[in-house]
């Protein structure tokens, strides 16, 4: 029986790419839990399996073995649990932040946030109201109608954070969110994530290879060759 104390639970998670001679064990036997409101860093060198871990929890990369439980729903148990709507879970429970902001180039800042709300069937008006509010709270009130190309790197990443937060997800997954930013903007983004974890009571999992970025995190998992140590 799942324990409602945790937003994310991972048990003996293993991900193997390929088969036979060329098989790569990207994640080996990972077990951990993350509580709501907790800010966790996954730190490790390139190729150590950080993205694989994130995408397995993010329901876009099927685990080979082990269990993944998101907000009390068992989503993977030796592969995806059959009959589960991964897209719906991603819409409702997860928020993603990417290395490159991944904003949709032909939508304005406001529309980029609205789209995340509209795919969750919010009315246009409600989506607009909530997106505007969110962007203003992230100091982007003057950028609502700008296209991503007109935004600075830090601004674009803040819009992307607003999009990830829009549906008030239980879990936020960020893959190298500061990699495309300079140190100062990177620190600002991390500070923002810290603040949001507390305010929104979301579990936030941040992947990075940059040790300087993870100060003040609740926990730090270090990954080496697919093995996790905390």
């Amino acid at each position: 029986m799942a324990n409602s104390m945790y937003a994310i639970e991972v048990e003996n998670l293993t991900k193997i790419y390929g088969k036979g001679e060329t098989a790569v064990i990207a994640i080996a036997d990972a077990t951990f839990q993350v509580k709501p409101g907790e800010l966790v860093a996954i730190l490790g060198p390139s190729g150590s399996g950080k993205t694989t871990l994130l995408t397995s929890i993010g329901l876009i990369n099927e685990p080979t073995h082990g269990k993944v439980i998101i907000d009390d729903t068992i989503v993977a148990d030796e592969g995806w649990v059959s009959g589960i709507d991964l897209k719906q879970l991603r819409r409702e429970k997860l928020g993603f932040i990417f290395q490159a902001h991944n904003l949709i180039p032909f939508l304005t800042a406001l529309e980029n946030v609205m789209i995340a709300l509209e795919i969750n069937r919010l009315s246009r008006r409600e989506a607009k109201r909530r997106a505007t509010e969110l962007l203003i709270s992230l100091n982007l009130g003057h950028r609502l109608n700008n296209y991503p190309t007109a935004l600075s790197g830090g601004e674009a990443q803040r819009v992307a954070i607003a999009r990830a937060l829009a549906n008030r997800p239980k879990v936020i997954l960020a893959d190298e969110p500061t990699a495309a930013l300079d140190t100062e903007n990177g620190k600002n983004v991390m500070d923002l994530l810290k603040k949001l974890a507390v305010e929104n009571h979301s579990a936030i999992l941040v992947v990075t290879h940059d040790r300087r970025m993870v100060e003040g995190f609740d926990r730090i998992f270090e990954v080496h060759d697919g093995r996790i140590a905390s």
Partner: protein
Amino acid sequence: MNLAIRDIRYHRGRFILTSIGLGLLLGVVMSMGGIYRGLFADALTILTITKADIWVVQQDTNGPFAENSRIPEDIKYRIKAVPGVALASPLSFQTIQIDRSDKPLRFFLIGFDLNGFGGPPVILAGRNIRRKHYEMVVAQGMKMEIGEKIRLGLHDYTVVGITGKVVSSSGDPAAFVTLADAQEIQFKKDNDAIRNDRQRIGANLSGMQTLSPAQANYLRQNIAGITESTHTVNTVVARLAPGANVHEVQERIRRWNHFRPISVEEQTKILTKGMIEKARMQLGLFRMVLLVISAVIISLIIYTSTLDKIKVIATLKLIGSRNRVIVGMILQQSLLMGVIAYGIGYLLILLTYERFPRRIVLEPFDLQLLFAIVMAICVIASFVGIRKALKVEPAEALGG
């Protein structure tokens, strides 16, 4: 939020250019349909304006349009006497090309009986022909003015009236003269040729030892009468008395076995099936090729624009968009491109069709059918893009 429209708005330059290009293609497709309908209308113009029920032509011919037909003018009396015929009138047709101010002027000369029918359908300016000789009514397409003269055969003809858009089955503008004038232009050889003929026949007759000089002279005069005879026409058209049955009247005329009575229905078939069927097939083939080209262009554009959006599509999938949203975006763009291109093509044709050298007839049915075909093409053309989009993995959104 409509993603298709947002994307188009953002890339409007590219979208508009593509739509204009496609619009030109569709405009050509529309004009080809219009040309075919124009051919059809042209081919049937004279048939229509003559308002005859039966066209009597030479035995074993499909005259007078598709084939040559020559019959004596005086059979009009015999035709008129056939029970069921109310009116019969002879007509002569010939295509003439002359040089006018150093440019070739090609037209279709119709000779009609001033006391019969088959003359100009309307008079837009001036008057109808009144004198027996050397007056002419021309179609607008001749671009002549009242009072203008042209030389045909041995005489000058004066334009006295302008009629509407009357053209021959090959699209040449028509001109009307009296039957007698038309016969003279068509059949009377020029004076030199007549003199030559007379001398040749005279010499032959003088050489015949068995003829007395009086007999030779008598023969010479009669032969001259035949060689100079102009009393030949191409067709005699007949209108039926009220209540008369076309088939019965045709049967009565056919019984003499010297002439072929062609009903309007049959004449329509001869003109359309025989004369413009090839043009129809050719235009149809071109239209199909152009539509295939349009389909290829649309699918290429949609496919490349989908490739440009792989990351967008992956991101949308990752944040949980339903496939419907993504398929809808691509399909709507394709359809929108089709609608706009169709609109541009239509506008183009609407603005230019009167300036085409040949008549263009735009039938609403043809245009609606083309629209439906274009929409179907857009749906099919978007399949390659949609297939690609559906294969995109959400994980492709990650990374640089």
